[in-house]
C-alpha cells in the first residue's frame, strides 16, 4: 500500500516540474538534475568518465580507493607467483581482472563476431529447483556459470557463442526497425553436454558508477515502490528480490545484479571474484571447481583465501566510491522535451529519476545525497521476449531489475559501443526501448506510436544521462 502512495509522490514531483514549466512556457532543468551523483558527481564526459573517484572522497578512503583500483584493474596471475598478493587466478575463469569485463569501469558487450571470445559477458547456468537458501541449483558438471578459460594444465569448461535472429518490425508511422534475438550455442564442452534441463542466462558486465549511492538507499525507499499485486492498477507490479546473504547468513533485500540477486557490494564483489576470476575469499573460501572437474580441484592455489579480507574491503570501498558523471546538455530544448516524454510515456514509473540516499555507515560520501539514478531497484516482468526462463531467488524467469540509467549516454565514448539490455542484444537505445514488454508494454507501445520527433527527443534525453 505504501507503493502506490510513493509513486503518487513521484508523480507529484513530475507535475511540479511541468507546472514550473508552464510559467515560462518551456520546460526548464531542475536545479540539481545535472548532478546525477549528488556531491560525488564528476565533470568528465570523456573516456575516463567512469573511472574517477567521488569528488567528495574522504581523506581516510584515499588509500583504500587506490588499492582497490589497483586490484580491480590489474590482472590476477597464476599461482605460485612472486606477486603473492595477486596470484590464484582460476583454475577456471572468465577473466583475469575485474576491468577485463568492466573495462574503464564501464559496460560490457556481446562479441562482435563469431570468432571473438566472450570477454565482457558471461553465461549463468542452473537446473530447475533451488538450494535451501533459495538460490538456483548449479548445473552438476559446470556449476553456476560457464568459465571458458583456465590456467595451464586445467581444461577450460567450454565455449559459447551467440547466434542472432533478426526480428523485423515497424513504428506506428511505418518506419521500419529490426530487433535481434539471441540464442546460445555451446561447444568444446569439457565434460560432455550440459544437463538436458539446463537453464542459461547471458549477461554483460554493468557499469560501476554510483554503486555506493545505490547501496546507501534506504530499504524503505525501495520497498515503498513495490506493488506486487498492482493495487494501484497501473499495470506495474514491481517486486523486491529476497536473496541469501552469505555474510549475514540471512535472507535480505537484493539490490545488485541484473536480477537483483546480490544484497550488497561486498557480497557482489566476493561472488564475482569466485565465479568470474576463480579467486577465493572468506565469503567463498572454496575453489570454484564442480565435483567432476578433477584437474581443477588439484590445481595449485594462491593462498587460503586468495583474496584477503583487507583487500576485499578495499575493493568494496573502491566500488562504493566511483563517481557518477554529471549529465550533459540538461538545458537543451530537445533534451528537455525528451524528459517530458520520459514522464508522459510512463518510463519514470520504474526508472525513478530522483532518489535520496540514507546513511551508509562509514561512507559519508554517499550518505544523504540527492541522486538521479533512474531506477527503483525492483524486479519487473519484462515479457517473454526478454525472459531468460531462469529464476534467481524470488525473481522469475521473465523478471529483471530496473537497471539504473545514469551513464548510459556515455557508453559510446567510454566503451566504444551502444549495446544495451542484460545481454547486449539492443544495438542502440531505440532497440532497447522496443524490447520492453510485460509491465512495460504500454510504455513501449506509446513510444512505438509516438511521432518521430518525440521519439528522437526521448532518445536525446537518454543520451544526456
Amino acid at each position: 500500500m505504501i507503493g502506490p502512495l510513493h509513486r503518487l509522490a513521484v508523480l507529484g514531483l513530475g507535475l511540479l516540474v511541468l507546472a514550473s514549466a508552464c510559467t515560462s512556457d518551456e520546460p526548464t532543468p531542475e536545479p540539481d538534475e545535472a548532478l546525477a551523483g549528488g556531491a560525488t558527481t564528476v565533470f568528465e564526459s570523456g573516456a575516463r568518465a567512469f573511472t574517477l573517484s567521488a569528488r567528495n572522497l574522504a581523506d581516510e578512503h584515499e588509500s583504500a580507493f587506490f588499492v582497490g583500483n589497483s586490484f580491480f584493474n590489474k590482472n590476477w596471475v597464476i599461482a605460485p607467483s612472486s606477486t603473492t598478493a595477486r596470484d590464484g587466478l582460476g583454475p577456471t575463469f572468465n577473466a583475469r581482472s575485474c576491468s577485463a569485463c568492466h573495462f574503464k569501469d564501464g559496460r560490457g558487450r556481446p562479441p562482435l563476431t563469431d570468432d571473438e571470445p566472450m570477454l565482457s559477458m558471461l553465461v549463468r547456468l542452473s537446473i530447475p529447483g533451488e538450494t535451501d537458501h533459495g538460490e538456483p541449483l548449479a548445473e552438476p558438471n559446470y556449476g553456476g556459470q560457464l568459465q571458458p578459460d583456465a590456467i595451464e594444465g586445467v581444461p577450460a569448461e567450454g565455449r559459447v557463442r551467440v547466434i542472432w535472429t533478426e526480428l523485423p518490425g515497424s513504428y506506428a508511422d511505418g518506419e521500419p526497425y529490426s530487433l535481434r534475438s539471441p540464442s546460445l550455442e555451446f561447444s568444446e564442452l569439457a565434460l560432455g553436454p550440459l544437463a538436458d534441463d539446463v537453464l542459461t542466462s547471458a549477461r554483460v558486465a554493468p557499469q560501476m558508477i554510483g554503486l555506493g549511492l545505490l547501496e546507501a538507499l534506504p530499504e524503505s525507499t525501495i520497498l515503498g515502490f513495490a506493488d506486487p499485486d498492482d493495487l494501484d492498477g497501473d499495470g506495474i507490479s514491481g517486486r523486491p528480490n529476497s536473496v541469501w546473504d552469505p555474510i549475514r547468513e540471512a535472507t535480505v533485500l537484493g539490490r545488485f545484479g541484473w536480477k537483483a540477486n546480490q544484497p550488497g557490494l561486498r557480497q557482489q564483489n566476493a561472488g564475482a571474484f569466485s565465479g568470474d576470476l576463480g579467486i577465493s575469499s572468506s565469503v567463498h573460501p572454496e575453489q570454484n571447481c564442480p565435483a567432476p572437474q578433477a584437474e581443477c580441484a588439484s590445481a595449485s592455489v594462491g593462498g587460503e583465501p586468495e583474496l584477503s579480507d583487507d583487500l576485499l574491503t578495499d575493493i568494496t570501498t573502491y566500488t562504493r566510491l566511483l563517481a557518477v558523471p554529471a549529465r550533459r546538455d540538461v538545458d537543451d530544448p530537445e533534451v528537455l522535451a525528451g524528459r517530458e516524454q520520459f514522464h508522459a510515456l510512463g518510463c519514470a514509473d520504474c526508472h525513478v529519476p530522483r532518489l535520496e540516499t540514507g546513511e551508509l555507515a562509514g561512507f559519508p560520501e554517499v550518505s544523504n545525497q540527492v541522486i538521479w539514478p533512474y531506477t527503483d531497484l525492483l524486479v519487473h516482468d519484462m515479457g517473454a521476449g526478454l525472459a531468460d526462463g531462469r529464476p534467481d531467488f524470488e525473481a522469475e524467469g521473465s523478471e529483471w531489475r530496473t537497471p539504473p540509467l545514469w551513464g548510459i549516454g556515455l557508453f559510446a565514448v567510454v566503451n566504444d559501443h551502444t549495446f544495451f539490455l542484460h545481454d547486449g542484444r539492443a544495438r542502440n537505445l531505440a532497440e532497447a526501448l522496443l524490447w520492453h514488454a510485460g509491465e512495460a508494454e504500454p510504455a513501449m507501445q506509446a513510444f512505438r506510436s509516438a511521432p518521430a520527433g518525440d521519439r528522437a527527443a526521448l532518445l536525446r534525453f537518454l543520451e544526456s544521462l
Partner: protein
Amino acid sequence: MTATRPFLASLALGLACSSPDDGREPLTADEVAPVAETYATMVALNYAETYASAQSLRDALGDLVATPSEATMTAARAAWLAARVPYDQTEVYRFYDGPIETVEGRLNAWPMDEAYVDYVEGLPDAGIINDPASYPTIDVALIRSLNEAGGETNIATGYHAIEFLLWGQDFDPNGPGARPSSDYDDSGSGTAANQDRRGDYLLAAGDLLLADLSSVVIAWDPAQPGTNYRAEFLAAEPEEIVRRILLGMASLSGAELAGERISVALDTQDQEDEHSCFSDNTHRDIVDDARGIQNVYEGRYGSSVGSGIYELVAARDLALADRLRAEIQTSVDLAEAIPAPFDRAIIDHRDAVEATVEALRTQTDSIVEAAALLDIQLAIE
C-alpha cells in the same frame, strides 16, 4: 587532494556563468607555443634515448643467448637497468591518450605472469617456454599474438618479461632474483629445460620491445614527413595542449605513483607487490618517474632546455610556481632517500616511503591548483 575536489566542483558549476573577474584568463597561443615546442622536443629526445637504450639491451640479450656466461648475464642485466632510466622518465607522457597508450600494455605491463612464461618454484614444467607441443615456434608473432586482446591476456611481454627472464623469481628477502646464466646454456650442461626456447623467448621479447618503442618514436619524431601525433599535438588548442601535459603530470604523480605504485605496496606489505620485483629496481623506477615530472615542469631534458609549465604558471602566480617547483624537488629528494631495496623499505622504512607518498600528493594538489589558475579543469582520479 580532498581540498581540491570541492574547489573543482565549484569551478565546474561556475562554468555556467563563467565570470571573468576571478583573475583567470584563457591561455593564448603565443603563451603556450614555446612550452608546447619544448615539450614536444623533449618527448622526442626522451623516446629516442629510450629506443637507443633498448637497442643496447637487445644487443646484450643477443650476447647472452649466443654465449651464456656470468659475464654476459651481468652485462644484460646492466643493460636492462640502464634502459629503465630513460623509459621511466617517459611515463609522464602517458595518461592523455597519446601514442604511448596503444603499446604501453605490451611494454610495461605488470604483474608479470611468470608461470605462463617459464618455470617457477614448484612448477618446473610451467609456461610457454616448456611447452613445445602447444607452441612449437617462439617468435615475435607468437608473443605479440598472446598479448593482443587487451586485459584478457596473460602478461608475457615487455620490460618486466625480460626482467623475469634475466633475474628469475626473487626469493631473497634482501636481494634480487638469481637466475643462473646456465638457464640459457643449451650445450647439454645447462640448468632447467628448454634453454634454446628460453633464448628464443628472450630475443623475441627484446625485438617486440624495440618494435613497440619505434612506433612511439615515429609518432613524436619532428623529422617525420606527413602528419604524426607530434604535428597534431602542436596544432591543438592552447588549453588542450596544456591540459594534456598537466594531466600526464598529475596522473603520474597522484593516482599512479603515490597511489598505485607506492601506497598499494605499503598497504599490502607484500614483498613482491612492486613493479620491478625480480631485479629489485623499483626504487629507481620511482625516482625516475618523479624526475620525469620535474623535467616537464622545468622544460628540460638532458641538453634540451626551453620553457616549461613553470614559466606558464610563474607569469600568473610566481608564488605558486615557486612552491610547486620546491614541492617537486622535495618529491625527487624523498624518493632518492628511500633505502633500497623497495621491497624491504615498505616493511623496514615505512616512514621514508610514506613521506614520499605525502610529497607526491602535495605536489599533485598543486598541479591541480596550477591547472585551475590556467583555467583548465583537470579531472584526475
